[in-house]
């Protein structure tokens, strides 16, 4: 509800009118910046996707040709399927681990102040650094596998990163490592916000710990779930740096993701038209996830 909306007519003095307009004036720069730098650029990209742009933007329209080509390119299929696998596993596993850590940390754990930053710090690193580190660790020749062999576990084998079918899962591992702590923080915040009295009441009702979490606590974490979902899905769709640093799309093209596809086609292969059309498809995917969420979220608060 409005804090103020005096429907002022010309009778109001200047200062009063200024006060009424100030909120809009303050918001205006952000709004302008957003219209130009986000929606203007999106419009520009949509336009480009219908042109024959190659190295630099061109303004000659070619209709749906770029989209037709896009869906005939094999790597695009790979990228889409990979995104499905990656985003699905990444979101689900990060959420589960984040939630478990948060629940466990919420049990009046000694040393929480020590553990929490450990869980949280990966989010501070850039994906480039994370990717490089994991690339080394997962490399069978120099990483985990050899170390295990050296420690006497000769049969240990973990060479997913070298396997076209499994490499995408190693990216999931690294991405989960990076983000699950952040998810943990969101859930922890949610858990700390739950009224203890409700839990006491549930206990009186004879709920076991497990039931208490399933029936009472988790439903109350809905906002945290939603926030986590939105942040994770946006990271998943935008994932680029991590793949580049870890596998650079390999082995072969088995770990391509749409963001990588877009960058490759636009900037390396000089097929800006196809790159733009892939960007448009990505934007539409994001919109398909975000718009219902935003709509529900904002409608509720109206």
């Amino acid at each position, binding site marked *: 509800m*409005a*804090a*103020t*909306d*005096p*429907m*002022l*007519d010309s*009778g*109001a*003095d200047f*200062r*009063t009118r200024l*006060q009424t307009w100030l909120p809009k004036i303050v918001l205006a720069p952000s709004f302008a910046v957003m219209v130009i730098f986000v929606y203007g650029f999106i419009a520009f990209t949509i336009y480009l996707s219908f042109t024959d742009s190659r190295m630099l933007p061109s303004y000659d329209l070619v209709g749906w040709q770029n989209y037709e080509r896009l869906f005939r390119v094999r790597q695009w299929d790979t990228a889409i399927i990979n995104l499905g696998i990656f985003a699905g596993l990444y979101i689900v596993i990060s959420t589960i681990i984040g939630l478990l850590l948060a629940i466990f940390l919420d049990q009046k754990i000694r040393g929480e102040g020590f553990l929490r930053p450990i869980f949280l710090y990966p989010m501070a690193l850039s994906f480039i650094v994370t990717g490089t580190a994991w690339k080394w660790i997962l490399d069978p020749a120099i990483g985990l596998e050899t170390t295990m062999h050296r420690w006497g576990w000769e049969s240990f084998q973990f060479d997913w990163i070298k396997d076209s079918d499994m490499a995408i899962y190693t990216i999931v591992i690294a991405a989960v490592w990076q983000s699950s702590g952040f998810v943990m923080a969101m859930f922890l915040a949610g858990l700390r916000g739950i009224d203890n009295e409700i839990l006491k009441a549930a206990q009186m009702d004879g709920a076991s710990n497990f039931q208490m979490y399933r029936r009472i606590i988790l439903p109350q974490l809905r906002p945290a779930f939603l926030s986590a979902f939105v942040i994770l899905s946006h990271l998943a769709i935008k994932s680029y740096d991590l793949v580049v640093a870890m596998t650079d799309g390999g082995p072969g093209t088995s770990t391509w993701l749409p963001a990588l596809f877009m960058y490759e086609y636009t900037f390396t292969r000089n097929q800006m038209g196809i790159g733009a059309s892939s960007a448009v498809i990505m934007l539409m995917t994001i919109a398909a996830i975000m718009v219902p969420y935003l709509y529900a979220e904002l409608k509720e608060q109206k």
Partner: protein
Amino acid sequence: MGFLDINNVTKSYGAVEVLHKVDIQVDEGEFLVLVGPSGCGKSTLLNMIAGLEGISSGEIAIKDRVVNNITPSKRNIAMVFQSYALYPNMTVGQNITFGLEMQGTPKPERDKAMAEVASLLQIENLLDRKPGQLSGGQRQRVAMGRALVRDPDVFLFDEPLSNLDAKLRVDMRTEIKKLHQKLGTTIVYVTHDQIEAMTLSTRIAVMYDGYVQQLGTPKEIYDTPANIFVATFMGSPAMNVLPAQLIEMNGAIHAEVAGADGPKHLRIEDAPDAYGNYVGKSVMLGIRPEAITDPEGADRNAKNIQSLANQVTVTEPAGADTFVTMSLGGKDCVARMRADAEANPGQPFEFAVNMDKAVLFDPQTEARLA
């Protein structure tokens, strides 16, 4: 013209009108209470007086100055909020003087004003604390202090006592009343609690559904409610409103209501002319619980006490009083009796009904017949 004039004020959000032609004149020194259930528009009206919400049509004037287009701070008003709205980052002293500071009052004057208010409200020892360190009652005092220090033309209170526990609420109520009597300021006070409305006000505006249902002194409101809503909203337990038939019997108008074991007749004396038109028709009979007693407990000054034999369904002893419920007109009808009245559930009982206090309403318009 009054001290605070609310002239035909309406409020709309888009096409929806939420406040309809409110017209209230408040005199200097009056204590006006806006009372009604939540969503009735009372807080909206208060916010419009404060300048926190715009006025869609009509006019509000304070001391004959139209304030429609004047910012809240220039209206010379002060407001006490339900949550007290104390600035959590400032000390009590800073909270109290923030308004003066904003107006550019020099520090020595601010300090002087603060000291006066603090001593008036007995919060001198709290001045250096932060709101988070205060109890509910203390916060309430600080919030009042913040309003008092500005010496405004009009005080606005938005449900100031609703966050306090029962005991404290009664104490603070008394305190506010004392303060009003001592300072003689003009107050507009919003509450949903009819007891607060009755105890504090010099006049009450009962609001419902965006309309002022009745504006009057507490006694007018209580004794001659304008309609069924006002009748049932004010008073606790609520007024019994029973379906009845108005009949002419033995040359007098009687109300016929269905008792547990057949129709009961209650004679009405000094019936206003309006009643005549309703003879033979359905009406709603309003009787306050305290007007139904045992014969010994009946009001000695009452002129028309009717006896009513009926079966008791439930008794609820409440210390000083006992509430006795019977079935009348197909509804539960509550009577308020002395604690030693001997009514027992399931037993017949001889009730005494003070028909001086009974009112009749039109069943369609729900307006009181007069």
